[in-house]
């Protein structure tokens, strides 16, 4: 309970800091919001009216407090540009991004864990060296190149997947999978390398522990040793990293959603920034921040599940 309370307070503090920072950053960007909304052909009268309607003449902190007050009441406002309620726009897009990020995390873990295990079992072997080299290549390849390469091979050349677009899961689960697989792989590849390298190192350390030697002496198979004894205590770093990497993955969705034309939050956010759409951007920032903090809160809970010592320490 105490843990939940402290995490909630942290969430509030982070939300205030992040939303205020994004408010300031957009205000500092060159270019005029009214020009962006109305275009330079609008009359001075129309500009003044828009300025008044958008409350742009008020000091930044005042505007922020007004926005935060409305947001606390559940009103995220209306997009300057599209006149669409921000909450409605976010609702249309957030699931695409959640699905994309979850899918890519699953892919990253599904590939990284076996890679790490095989590498850790025989450190320095030819297999370990090949896997390490592959991971380095994954780290060094820019995401957009991976995305375009995957599209060129699997969508254009082989025709196995759609190049662009999104089908909701509720409409057609198989088509949903097909529309998200390539973007999810593009987003996952960099994470695969990072996850595999961290887990490999932790596994190598764990394999050197007394209890693993004891398990070996008892005649446990390698499979049993890895799955039942080594993997769990070696996963703390990986689980932490999985939570932290959510932020980086959300950043990656901007690129991936643009290349694969997915109607997600990343594309929405970059459009809001490009068009100085405060309201839309603030809404997106709130959703992304809450998502990030909640995921990391879940990671903290998982730590306790994985390692009883952490659970006991928290209880004290």
């Amino acid at each position, binding site marked *: 309970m105490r843990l939940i309370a402290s995490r909630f307070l942290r969430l509030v503090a982070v939300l205030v800091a992040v939303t205020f920072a994004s408010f300031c950053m957009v205000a500092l960007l060159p270019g005029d919001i009214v020009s962006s909304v109305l275009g*330079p052909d609008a009359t001075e009268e129309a500009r003044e009216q828009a300025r008044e309607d958008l409350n742009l003449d008020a000091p930044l902190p005042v505007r922020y407090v007004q926005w935060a007050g409305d947001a606390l009441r559940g009103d995220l406002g209306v997009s300057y540009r599209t006149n669409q309620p921000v909450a409605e726009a976010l609702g249309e897009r957030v699931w695409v991004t959640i699905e994309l990020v979850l899918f890519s995390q699953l892919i990253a873990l599904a590939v990284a864990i076996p890679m790490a295990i095989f590498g850790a079992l025989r450190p320095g072997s030819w297999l370990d060296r090949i896997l390490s080299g592959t991971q380095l290549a994954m780290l060094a390849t820019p995401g957009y190149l991976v995305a375009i390469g995957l599209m060129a091979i699997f969508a254009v050349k082989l025709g196995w997947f*759609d190049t662009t677009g999104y089908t909701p899961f509720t409409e057609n689960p198989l088509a949903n999978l097909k529309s998200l697989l390539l973007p999810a792989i593009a987003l996952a590849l960099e994470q695969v390398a990072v996850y595999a390298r961290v887990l490999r190192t932790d596994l190598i350390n764990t394999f050197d522990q007394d209890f693993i030697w004891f398990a070996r002496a008892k005649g446990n198979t390698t499979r049993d040793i890895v799955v039942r004894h080594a993997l769990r205590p070696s996963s703390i770093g990986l689980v932490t990293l999985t939570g932290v990497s959510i932020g980086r993955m959300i950043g990656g969705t901007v690129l991936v959603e643009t290349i694969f034309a997915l109607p997600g939050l990343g594309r929405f956010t970059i459009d809001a920034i490009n068009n100085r759409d405060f309201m839309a951007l603030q809404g997106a920032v709130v959703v992304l921040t809450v998502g990030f903090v909640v995921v990391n809160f879940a990671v903290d809970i998982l730590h306790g599940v994985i390692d009883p010592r952490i659970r006991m320490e928290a209880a004290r």
Partner: protein
Amino acid sequence: MGNRANRPWRRIAAITLLVAAVAACGGNKPSDSSPTEPDVSSGETTPVTDAPVLTNAPTTTNAELVPTAGGSITVGLNSESTGYNPTVDAWADSGHNVAHAIFDPLATFDAGGKVVPYLAEAITPNDDATVWTITVRPGVTFHDGTPLNAEAVRLNFEANKNSPQFGSQLALLGSMAVIDDLTLELAMTQAWGTFPNVLCGTIGSQIGYMAAPAMLASADGGRSPIGTGPFTFVEWVPDDHLTVARNDAYWQDPAYLDEVVFKPIPDSTSRKAAKDAGDIDLYYTGSSSEIQEYQAQQADGEVNVTIGAPGEGDMVMLNTKSAPLDDVRVRRALAMSVDIPRLFDFLDATGVKQPTHGPYADSSFWYVESDYPEYDLEGATALIDEYVAEKGPVEFEFAGGQDPFIVSIQELYQSMWSEIGVTVNIVSRAQGENISAVIAGDFQVVLWGGIGGGDPDNDYVDFHSNTGQNFSGFNTPEMDAALDAGRALTDPDERKEQYAIVQKVLGENVPYIWTGTNQYGIITSTDVLGIADFDLPDGTPGQPISGQVFFLKDVWRLQ
């Protein structure tokens, strides 16, 4: 080419499209002017513009195929729009292509580029073009069943007049009167001979689209648009797709296609990949290299390529208020040292782009020869030497976007200008920042777009002294008078005389460096036909493609 506007969308489109060495077309914007002796001789208004659409694709007739109803196509768009209310949401090319399916413009272009009534039955001026009468076509209904009548047209004009975005385009509209159910009279505050130009539904000019009164009255009407067009709105998932279905109650023959799905794909590489993979059936590109690649594929029967009429050209704008560009010798020398074939080679545009010598393509009805300088490196060097001897070295900032391709274009100019002894400092800015800098006059030389190409009255705001949007800072009383006279006249030949004066003054003084036309290619699957077919209500051919905006009414899919 159609009607164009001097507004951000046109400029943003043109500047953005430089990334792919492409171009846009636009609309019209009237503002204050002092007309002289307007002469309106017929109800048919404004004139021939550029050359008619060129097409390489098999048309319905030349392929000797009979169009059949049915089928669906997916159209790839360059970008998503903020909404589909023509009086609120400012559209780039993508928005207009969707709008052409759902709405009908009051006027459009015939095959020769002349403005003719379309949804309106007639658009006629009084003798001095101060009063225009719009006669609405009888029996037309919006998709929601409400009739299109004079009151509905009035409501559309009223919404545009009150629109912060588009009100300035109707600055000359004084009052409106519904004469009878099908007749609307518009009184202008002064002669406005080119009024029908703004009614064609082209980039930057969307006040000609007629939306249902119920849609105009709804705060979120732009999310479920209701027009009179050949297709009715079905659903819109922003950033994913917008679907329309055939309007069986259309006032003309119903469209052939059952359904059209528009997919915004912002990344150009992905758009091309989507076409190559067959995920989309039609898209448009201004990239010369892509057009050439598809033309090669067309020879193998893999795709169809339809090329529209030349649009406004690529250009460089010079700030004539800023030294050393305030000296005409420097401006002429810069133009004389631009090696157009070298530029076209660099852009992979040889054989696609045509060189220009002024705001209007050589093939345009409006084009007249001027004293615009030809390529002459020696002459340019001599002019610079003369300037340097008098006033010192020639050095300036050359602004453009941040895209590496834009920067490489700037570097090519830099290299050509360095050959005559000019020092060029390249400045790269974000697109919005660049536009703001130009509006504020805080530039010396800039890669620009959105001027020239269509009806010369569209360039009024760019060339006239009293508009606040003459960003080059160059104007003369002679040119102002010609622009005012051209706006008030309706006879094309008489108007051309006025615009000949404008071109002559521009050619002598070089506030802009013109390079080449922009062309768009519409790429279609081989079983999608009819993109180059567009019949007017009287059965005569219309102009199917204006820039990158096309009609889908007569497009059909081989079953």
